[in-house]
């Protein structure tokens, strides 16, 4: 299997006044193409920071990130944006939908940015898949949390990404809705072969992925296949 994400010697520090706060250090791991991968750890362990660095949303102080065969440090902001648009999907804990756009328009955004002429049609199909056929013209404020997350899910798959990053995808949902969303996420992963990187507190969810990376205090505690665990 080829590697879609290669992280090598990653370090991230933040300055707070005169103090330097190291959030991540000496992080090295790989994610295989088509794999389901989870990152777990207590609050403040650096999970979200790691996800941001993996997806090129932020820059590390040291180390390299190679995503889809490209070293992110060699790309400028626009090139990274293009890489994300073509290869990456996102799901956030708080959904992060654009409040001024309807569900359909939100899902269409990645495709529209690619200049796709079938954006609306593709988005409709995806919304149908996540069970929101009747809610396509609703604004985020008119949708429940579960519905909003399903729109986010449809948007994440809209550009047929090679890799999908999900940051606590069920964090804001009740158990039942959360389960539905996860099932949908895993189904879509199977169907499209998209690599899945999930950040979660939920060990049960983590156990449903193929590989688990444990973080603590900004360092890797373990990185093992679920079967071994």
């Amino acid at each position, binding site marked *: 299997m080829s590697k879609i994400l290669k992280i090598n010697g990653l370090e991230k520090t933040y300055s707070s006044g005169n103090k330097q706060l190291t959030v991540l250090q000496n992080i090295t791991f790989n994610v295989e193409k088509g794999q389901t991968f989870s990152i777990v750890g207590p609050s403040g362990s650096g999970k*979200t*920071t790691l996800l*941001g*660095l993996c*997806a090129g*949303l*932020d820059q590390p102080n040291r180390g390299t990130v190679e995503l889809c065969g490209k070293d992110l440090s060699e790309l400028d*902001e*626009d090139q990274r*944006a*293009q890489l*994300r*648009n*073509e290869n*990456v999907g*996102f799901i*956030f*804990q*708080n959904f*992060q939908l*654009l*409040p*001024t*756009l309807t569900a359909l328009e939100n899902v269409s*955004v*990645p495709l*529209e*940015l*690619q200049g796709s002429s079938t954006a609306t049609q593709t988005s409709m199909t995806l919304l149908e898949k996540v069970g929101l056929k009747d809610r396509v013209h609703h604004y985020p404020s008119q949708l429940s949390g579960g519905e909003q997350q399903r729109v986010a899910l449809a*948007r994440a798959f809209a*550009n047929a990404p090679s890799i999908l990053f999900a*940051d606590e995808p069920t964090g804001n949902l009740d158990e039942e809705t959360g389960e539905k969303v996860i099932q949908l996420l895993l189904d879509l992963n199977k169907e499209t072969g998209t690599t899945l990187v999930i950040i979660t507190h939920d060990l049960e969810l983590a156990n449903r992925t193929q590989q688990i990376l444990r973080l603590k205090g900004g360092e890797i505690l373990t990185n093992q296949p679920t079967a071994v665990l």
Partner: protein
Amino acid sequence: MVWRDAKASRTRLLLFMASIILGIAAVVSIQLFSSNLKDNIYRQSKSLMGADYIIDTRNSPTERAQAIIDSLVPDAMEVNFMSMIAFPKNGGTKLVRVRGMEGDFPFYGSIDTQPISAASNYQDLGGALVDATLLLQFDVKPGDSIKVGEVTLPISGSLKAIPGSTAISTSVAPPIIIPYRFIDDTQLLQFGSRKEYQYFFKAPEISDFNLFEEQIGPKLDAEGSDLDTHSATSQRLGRRYENVGKFLNLAAFIALLLGCIGIASSVHIYIKEKLNAIAILKCMGASRLQSFLIFLIQIAGIGMVGGFIGSLIGIGVQELFPYFLKDFLPFDVEISISVQPIIIGVLLGLCMSVLFALLPLLRTWYVSPLDVLRIDEQGSKAPQNIRLLVFGCIVIFLYAFSFWLLSDAIYALGFVIATLITFTVLGGVALLSIRTIRRFFPKQWGFTARQSLLNLFRPNNQTVVLVVAIGLGTFLISTLYFTKDILLSKTDVGQMDESANIIILDVQREQRDAVVQSISAEGMPILDNIPLVTMRMHSIKGRMVNELRKDTTHQVRGWILNHEFRTTYRDSLIASEEMAEGEWTPTLEPGEPIVISISDNLANDAKVGVGDPIVFNVQGMLIETTVGSIRQVDWARVQLNFSVVFPKGVLEDAPQFNVLSTSAPDEQSSAKLQRDLVAEFPNVSIIDLRQVITLIEDILDKVSWIINFMAFFSIFTGIIVLIGSVLTSKYQRIKESVLLRTLGAKNTHIRQITAFEYLFLGLLGSLVGILLALVSSLFLALFVFNEPFYPSMIPFLVFLPGITLLVLVIGLSNIRSVLKSSPLEVLRREG
């Protein structure tokens, strides 16, 4: 808590303050200048006039008037009239006002001359004081000579200023002062010459000039003379400049209003964002009053500090006004600073900011602690009747403030209604445009264009406020330009080939043919050759004029009874006339009853209509006439108009003089003609309309500057509101932009979305402003100036792209920080 919360939001609060600072600065600067102007007029009233009182009369005073004047013992006198002069040094000629002066005028203030000694010794030396600009124009210096009629005098000094004259009033006919004893020798005062006698009095012993005016005024009035006291002059001047001040005050008030609307809109969004925090405070036990006061004190503090800073800026700005208005004012304005405008500024800042912030502030009162769990948009709104009450307070305050500025209840009401209408129209058009776009949303457009249009309806959008702010500023500037064009088109005779641009006055009957010949010899056409016969009214509708003067109940306007009418005779109407009533009589045969045509304003003032008899006194001979027709006359046209016109066949043998007009193709030929005519016929006066038009343009330019200045305040406030609104929605924009970037949008996409949005806002605002200005100028043209309206293209070609570009630049400059934000940082914060 007030301070802690304000510290956290200081950038935004500073922007609220900027809106109020500009408005207050405008109001305070104008207020201070107006009050300084009034003080100066009062203080300088004697030196403005140069005497305690003046008696003036057209032509020589009557015997009885002369007796009154003699009994009062004048300390100085002058006769003044328009005439051509020549400079022998270079042959230059010019129409001037010759003032033949006797005595030691002025008694207060001084004649400002170069050399200074010339003002006191020109009488003894027998020299002339010549307008300084005129000397510069013709490259003549003190020591050279000037030819006034048949007299050539040495120039004693250049005349810079004399009490009672302004630069504007002396520009058409610059003044020349010569000793009175030379007037007869000039031989310029001939039959038909228009002249004015002025008698100057120094009477420090008179304490009550109003009483003096009541006693002497009517007696002199009856003899066709006028009494003018220094206190009356200062009152008149005061009134004149007060009107200018009122206009500027209102313009400043509009700028302030605009700032207040900016505040209301920003506070609305500011409070909306704070609702959750307020709900938390209430959960922890804060009372309604406490949470309300936290924000009320913040806004009141901003208003007061803004008012204070605005007042200080206003004090600085008012120093500029005398510099730009100096040509309009017959005196120097000394700027003094009083505390009153500063107090007004602070109070105004406080009242306006609190009043306009009250509606959004009320939400803090009504927000429920339950909102911690879930924000209910409708739940925190104040009840309808409370909101109406606040709105009522705002309108009452606006009315009270306008009334304070205008001192007239009806005008104040008119201003408030006009302001409400203007704002409603601008806001309405903005809303309508947004709804239209929403209704016919261009779904086929590209992603960035669609996204930018969507931003116009985004939650917390300030589209309407921005369109109103941009629109109002553009409206003011564009109206100025359109109106200026209307005014200039009325004087635009110099550019038309067939129009007269030289008018030759006071041509005696025996000179007429020779003058015509001289003009023709230069190859120029005679466009008009109009005979003028002077006469006074002897009786109106059977009642003697003398009898009417004594009757206090008559309704005939006073000027009619003393006026020397310059009439003409012809057989057709001219371009500036239209028949309003009756029938035009072109000619009469000897013996037929004489029917005349009078102008509509004369008919109104003399209370006569078609069929009424009027008897005229023509040089001692009485002529009985009947009003045959009434003409509507456009007096604003640059051509010779008459209030009384006789048919041909009546006045041909009466004593008369002529007015001729011609058209000179260029300045050189115009100057040559003037030189030749003055050399041959020293008594004729020549008006070069080209110079008059240049002068009018000059005056309009100065007036435009002041209006532009006020419009600038409005535009600038608009820009502050714009920056404020961009900053207010900055965090929302950051989040959206970051999301778009996370999803793969490039910086170009974000820039394009912002650019389209502001391009649209700028275009809509300035276009609506220009269109409103177009409509208001059309009304002005039709109903005030009675002129056809040909709008200037400048607002469309310059203002529209200029203002749009400005809005675009501000929008894009604010998005820079958005583009620099790290996506992860924002997502974490939002998360």
